[in-house]
């Protein structure tokens, strides 16, 4: 038993020590993540040394002091000096560990003087990013196709770690994250920044980073947040400050144009085919996680939409619940997540798919009445 264990333990040292290895903590791309990595390795090595001493003594005695070799037992069973020694020495080692740990901790918790601030909001099961002082905000959803998850398509390189719209951040800039949630607790985690902060509903947490190198960094939600907890990754693209500035100005322009387009849409109507086609896409992206692709929900957890009273008969109620959500349940307000067009389309889709066939067409203007209600 014993040799195997020791070899396993020793074998893990070089593995864990090689920085690029998949088996160890990342050194990351920030000064903080590097300090965290160093701390991790220091304590790991200290544990190894203690382990070698303690397990070494055990094995020596298992080998030398065995009955089968005729070893006679000694009779000592106390030694105050030794006992004091092995209380005090570990204590001093701990003090040695605590000093660098405390310093790093203080550095990590100092989010002052940030130049860019992003509000990060978790909800079941996506992230929302909003840049402070800029007119840019958007949702970031898992981009891996359902067919890959269900093993019908080959899995891509970044399986489960890819999103439709990554968060974009400038390098060499202190970025502050304000982290919160719309429903349950989530946790926003990017290992390369050594940032993991819980998103608590109703409260705002603070974290920060300063990225050294441009690149794409991937992480995941770290706190169990319900059914699709495993399917809400975080992707961050870090760009040089000038590039970032160009990107965000462009996003502002796009957002502005989209708003004007919305207003124009109010006076237009879409055809049934158009509505159904867009509606299906939106439904699968935003609704199917709970209500299921076949509209039947999960009995006892998420209600069915197939042939139910609200969908079949209560048009105002239906628009209202999609736009404004239902307090105290997992049903979110989609009014601020989807465009008017998308809202109109998805409601039309729900009222006509899976044999619902109400024949109702909902237009952007119908939805607009319920916004801000």
């Amino acid at each position, binding site marked *: 038993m014993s040799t195997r264990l020791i070899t396993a333990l020793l074998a893990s040292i070089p593995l864990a020590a090689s920085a690029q290895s998949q088996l160890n*903590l990342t050194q990351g791309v920030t000064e903080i993540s590097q300090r965290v990595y160093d701390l991790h390795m220091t*304590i790991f090595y200290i544990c190894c040394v203690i382990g070698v001493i303690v397990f070494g003594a055990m094995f020596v005695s298992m080998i030398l002091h065995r009955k089968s070799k005729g070893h006679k037992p000694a009779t000592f069973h106390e030694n105050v000096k030794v006992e004091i020694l092995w209380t005090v020495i570990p204590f001093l080692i701990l003090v040695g560990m605590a000093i660098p*740990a405390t310093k790093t901790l203080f550095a990590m918790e100092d989010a002052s003087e940030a130049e860019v601030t992003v509000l990060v909001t978790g909800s079941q099961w996506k992230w929302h990013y909003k840049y402070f002082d800029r007119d840019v905000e958007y949702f970031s959803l898992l981009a891996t196709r359902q067919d890959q998850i269900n093993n019908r398509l080959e899995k891509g*390189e970044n399986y489960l770690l890819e999103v439709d719209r990554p968060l974009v951040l400038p390098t060499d800039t202190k970025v502050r994250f304000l982290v919160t949630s719309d429903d349950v607790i989530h946790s926003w985690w990017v290992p390369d920044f050594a940032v993991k902060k819980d998103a*608590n*509903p109703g409260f705002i947490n603070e974290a920060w980073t300063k990225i050294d190198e441009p690149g794409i960094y991937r992480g995941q939600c*770290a706190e169990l947040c319900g059914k699709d907890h495993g399917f809400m990754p975080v992707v961050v693209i870090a760009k040089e400050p000038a590039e970032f500035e160009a990107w965000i100005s462009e996003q502002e322009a796009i957002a502005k144009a989209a708003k004007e387009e919305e207003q124009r849409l109010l006076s237009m109507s879409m055809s049934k085919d158009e509505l159904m086609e867009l509606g299906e896409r939106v439904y699968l992206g935003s609704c199917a996680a709970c209500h299921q692709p076949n509209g039947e929900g999960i009995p006892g957890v998420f209600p069915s939409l197939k042939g139910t009273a609200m969908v079949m008969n209560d048009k105002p109620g239906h628009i209202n619940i999609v736009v404004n959500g239902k307090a105290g349940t997992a049903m979110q307000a989609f009014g601020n997540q989807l465009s008017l067009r998308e809202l109109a389309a998805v409601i039309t889709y729900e009222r006509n798919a899976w044999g619902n066939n109400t024949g109702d067409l909902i237009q952007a203007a119908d939805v607009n009445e319920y916004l801000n209600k």
Partner: protein
Amino acid sequence: MSTVAGEMDHHDHHHHAPSGITRWLFTTNHKDIGSMYLWFSFIMFLVGGSMAMVIRAELFQPGLQLVDPHFFNQMTTVHGLIMVFGAVMPAFTGLANWMVPMMIGAPDMALPRMNNWSFWILPFAFAILLASLFMEGGGPAFGWTFYAPLSTTYSSDSTALFVFSVHIMGISSIMGAINVIVTIMNMRAPGMTYMKMPLFVWTWFITAFLLIAVMPVLAGAVTMVLTDKYFSTSFFDAAGGGDPVLFQHIFWFFGHPEVYIMILPSFGIVSAIIPAFSRKKLFGYSSMVYATAAIAGLSFLVWAHHMFTTGMPVAAEIFFMYATMLISVPTGVKVFNWVATMWRGSISFETPMLFALAFVILFTIGGFSGLMLAITPVDFQYHDTYFVVAHFHYVLVSGAIFSIMAAAYYWLPKWTGHMYDETLAKWHFWCSLISVNVLFFPMHFAGLAGMPRRIPDYSLQFADINQIVSIGGFAFGLSQLIFLAVVIKCVRGGEKAPAKPWDGAEGLEWTVPSPAPYHTFETPPEVK
């Protein structure tokens, strides 16, 4: 030490021992109740184990193959609840029932009727919990830690059953703990002073106080979940003036002492077995007692080390980091004492000793990862990853559960009157030892490389590690069937066990014949 147990042998006890099912239903005998606890815990171990097999089968490959994510979450949740409350804790209560009276020279537990009740409500608690899996909407799916608001606003209706079953488990534990305390305080044989009690008795004594202190806190937490969900309170809902993080403080104020509830009795077991097979007195008896008390005291001051990422003030993070690091001092003292006990002993390697030695090494590895987790800045990286899963399985499976196996092998001859099959038992040990490490050691790497816990599917970089882990898991699960075979074989027959089958063993339990008569120490022994 002397004994009077044999004296009663020619009396016929059948007139007050009903037969058939009523014997077990109405029994107030500590040995019967101890056996029932142990069998119950083993059955729960297999039930919780099959759920782990479902989890490992789903995680064998990337992609979703066998179960949907909602059911996966139910499996991780109920697996955790069953293993903690159904397997480990009842096993310790079973051992306490069997051994505490015999070790202190008492005829039975102090409160035998309550003893019966505290056992018999348990099967109902777990029947309710398991039945909830078949409800519409499924069973609890919010993790064994049931963080609000996932367990309140966002949970299915089985939550009410979950709350009810946890209440029953809590009542059972509290009654069991009261019984242990009253027994130890009042029923020690003449001359059995506190500082002469075997360490198993000491550690259980301290554990029982922990139980009484924190089980009501757990009851409070589940009750608040219940009223938040069904009666419009908002303890944990910011919209109503509450705070979801408050839930975590309450839960972990219970939860951290709870993890020590699951390890202190192990310390007692190992402190009995290592001296027995080293044929040498336990090194540093009194420092062992003080270290246990110190661990128990400190365990109330470290709960927020589970919550470093919730956004605590730096001062609180510092406090909980230092306090947690401090706990490893008394824990280290224990390990050093065991090693010093072995040092220059006369060691032999029967199965109880093998499990005890594996315990010391593997528990210590779990202690090392615990120390790493205590370092707040690094815990930000480790938290909620497989690194934590590796940590607590090292301390709970190769820690607590290995010690329970060690105890079973150590005392089986006393319980059954037969020696167990040593060859088969060694097979059980080696299979368990190898597979438990294949199962849990690679989890450290998965966690460090960034794999979050409680996910039903993962990115491709984790595929190899998970496959190895799953294979270890299946092997560990199968190995436990060998244990079942050994126990059944030993109950049914085997070489007759003498009163004291281990030449180095000490304690009153070895002064009575094997199997221990139905009633022991009706006249207290004299302890010098």
